[in-house]
């Protein structure tokens, strides 16, 4: 569904991604595992063209999205929830959802705020509150809910569990699995193997800007993980 081929990305003069290649199939939950600075965020931002890549190929549903403006990529059905949450703090929860809204897609039942409130019950009671007054966990949920309002076929989640209390991590993991049941593919990044094991089908390990290992999550050994992800 999403195919990335030999992607090279620079920040200024520093090269961050080196010939990065990966693919996500429809209906999968795939993790991009790597330590901080390995290039996870840059990978996502390059896919969304928020940080334009220098060379390579990116296609989504067999169409090239390489160097397409971000908003067009989103309109193709690829949603993105960034790691630092970036909700609109002065907009209410409802308005945040409205900002993420896109026209419905064919063969796809559009998300409504009510459905999303079922998925994220904490948000329902705060729907008229400003985004900035939510707690960290609630903001994370709002970020995901807002992205879902664009009716994506695939959603990219950058470190969705970072900074969340253990209880909330569980809750969010369950929700992400539910998304899969509803036909949304998920591509997420994570540092912690244990957390990735909770929800993912398959994993890529990224190290110094390129993919070093790929396997189903069940067969991914701790050794492989240790080799690249521990400092």
């Amino acid at each position, binding site marked *: 569904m999403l195919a990335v081929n030999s992607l090279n990305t620079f920040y200024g003069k520093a090269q961050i991604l080196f010939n990065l290649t990966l693919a996500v199939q429809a209906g999968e939950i795939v993790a991009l595992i790597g330590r901080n600075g390995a290039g996870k965020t840059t990978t996502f931002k390059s896919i969304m063209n928020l940080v334009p890549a220098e060379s390579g190929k990116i296609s989504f549903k067999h169409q090239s999205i390489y160097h397409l403006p971000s908003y067009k990529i989103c309109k193709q059905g690829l949603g993105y929830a960034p790691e630092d949450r970036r909700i*609109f703090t002065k907009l209410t929860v409802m308005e945040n959802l409205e900002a993420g809204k896109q026209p419905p897609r064919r063969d796809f039942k559009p998300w409504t705020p009510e459905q999303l409130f079922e998925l994220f019950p904490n948000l329902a009671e705060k729907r008229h509150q400003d985004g900035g007054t939510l707690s960290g966990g609630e903001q994370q949920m709002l970020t995901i809910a807002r992205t879902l309002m664009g009716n994506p076929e695939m959603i990219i989640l950058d470190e969705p569990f970072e900074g969340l209390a253990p209880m909330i991590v569980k809750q969010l993991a369950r929700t992400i699995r539910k998304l899969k049941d509803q036909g949304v593919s998920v591509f997420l990044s994570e540092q912690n193997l244990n957390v990735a094991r909770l929800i993912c089908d398959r994993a890529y390990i990224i190290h110094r800007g390129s993919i070093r290992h790929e396997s189903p999550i069940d067969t991914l050994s701790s050794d492989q993980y240790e080799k690249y992800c521990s400092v």
Partner: protein
Amino acid sequence: MGFLIVQFLTGLSDASGLFLVACGLSLIFGVSRIVNFAHGSFYMVGAYLAYYLIGYLPLGGLSFWASILISGLIVGLIGILVEVLLLKRLYRSPELFLLMGTFGLILVIQDLSRWLFGSEDLLGPRCPGLDGSIDILGTLLPQYDLALIIIALLILLAIWLLLNRTRWGILVRAATEDREMLAALGVNQSLLFTSVFFLGSFLAGLGGALQLPKGGADLLMDLNVIAGAFVVVVVGGMGSILGAYLAALLIGELSAFGVLVLPQSTLVMMFLIMAVVLIIRPYGLFGKGKSGEYEYDEKTSAPIQPASERLKLAGLGLLLLVLLMPLFAGDFQLVLMIEIAILALSSMSLYFMMGPGGMISFGHAVFFGGGAYAAALLVHHLNTPMELALFFAPLLVGLLALIIGWFCVRLSGVYLAMLTLAFAQICWSIVFQWSAFTGGDDGLLSIWPSDWASNRIVFYYLTMTLCIGGILILRHLVFTPFGYTLRACRDSALRVDSIGINLKRHQWFTFALTGFFAGLAGSIYVFSKGSVFPDEMAIPRSFDFLLMVLLGGIEALSGPVIGSAAFIWLHDLISRIHFWQLILGSIFIFLVVAFPRGIAGFLDNRFGRIFSNHIGPRA
């Protein structure tokens, strides 16, 4: 009683036009982070267009209102043109370069208007059907004033609904916070920006057209209204429409009643209100938090390095050239060199505040002109000899800078910049209106150097010694603990506070230093010219200095010197041509598009390797 009511309503109607301009400015700033200096020019164009349209449209009674609406729409389209052709290219440049680009626009629009509409002041036509007056308890109020009040209220309501009740409004408010995120959510922000620019420009054009029957149209409208609009936006709080209305109201009313008490106080009044409000509420009446901050661009933040051997050699060569100049250069070149040196010192002091200090000043002319006036007044009223005047004038300006700085360092970002503009405007109006002491518009004449220095060449060397000395001292400061602390304050206010540094105190002293050296430049300037006029303190002068610093680029320590030289050379080259502002403006626009890092930044990029030490990897 009736008189007071009429006075109140007049204030309200004055506020209406100001509100329309400020409202558009605020909307544009909120979404695109552009402080659009050219917004006042849109207002002026709106007034001119309406004037001609009313004459041409064959619609009878309707032609008045139709013309006003059409003028607004045309200005809105001009706004789109400007946004698409110019500003879109600059969104990725540092915000300061956007300022420079929009300032270039002012010059271009100014000359184009002169060419298209002529330079005569035009008297506005009356509004058909509303050209009478109504009697309020014995005092007359023009009907048109009432109409303006109602129109402004309707527009306020319409914009509020637009922002809070429509999807477009939600997107605009979201873009105000985080544009990139909005793009990732599938919103075409480019289109959104353009639409906001259209609305903002439309409101400015409409404002200009609507005030035609009250104030007519002239070529000074642009700068006159932009200062007022800044004040309204800042007092009301950046991005707050309701705040802009209340601020316009406050200023309109206080001016309307202030005139009764002190007839000549209107200008001072407006800026005093601004100063008072900002001291009590730093982000304006309805402003929230730090939305007006300049974010320091990471690209401009490579560690500074001391001059390399080669750069020192180059500097030495330049110094030698300056010293030997009188041997082969004519009088004219010497005069030009004197001017360059003086302005270079002044812009170096502005650079010190803006670069290492991270504080942008829109009112630097208050220190430069202040120095010129301090010296001139000392000579004129006390017969002070040049030597003493050159000593005391900078000190007096340093003192003035301490007073101004005390207020300004409470703020940051755009708010600080606008407060500097406000103080500069207050001082300018005092100088302008207090003719008995300052000579007013006629200025002060016959301020000549002492006998020993009246020879051109002697004066040349005197100027070079003081100016180059000043520039080198300022340069040295950047490398001292004080300069480092200042940069630390700019980089992270949070961090300096947590290592025991009093940020405000250091910024405050920076104001004093900046004031002192700009004052020194100003006082030399007055002796080189022999006279001083209020223009030296006015807004365009402040913009000149801003341009010199920006032209040089704020990344390089040599920027201000190169920038001033380029500016004066350019100015001198083309100021004899008829539409020179058009050319100068176009050059600025070209420069910001072509060299988004400034001339010195460009040179550094291109030839940096030749002059750098390579202590460590550069960011």
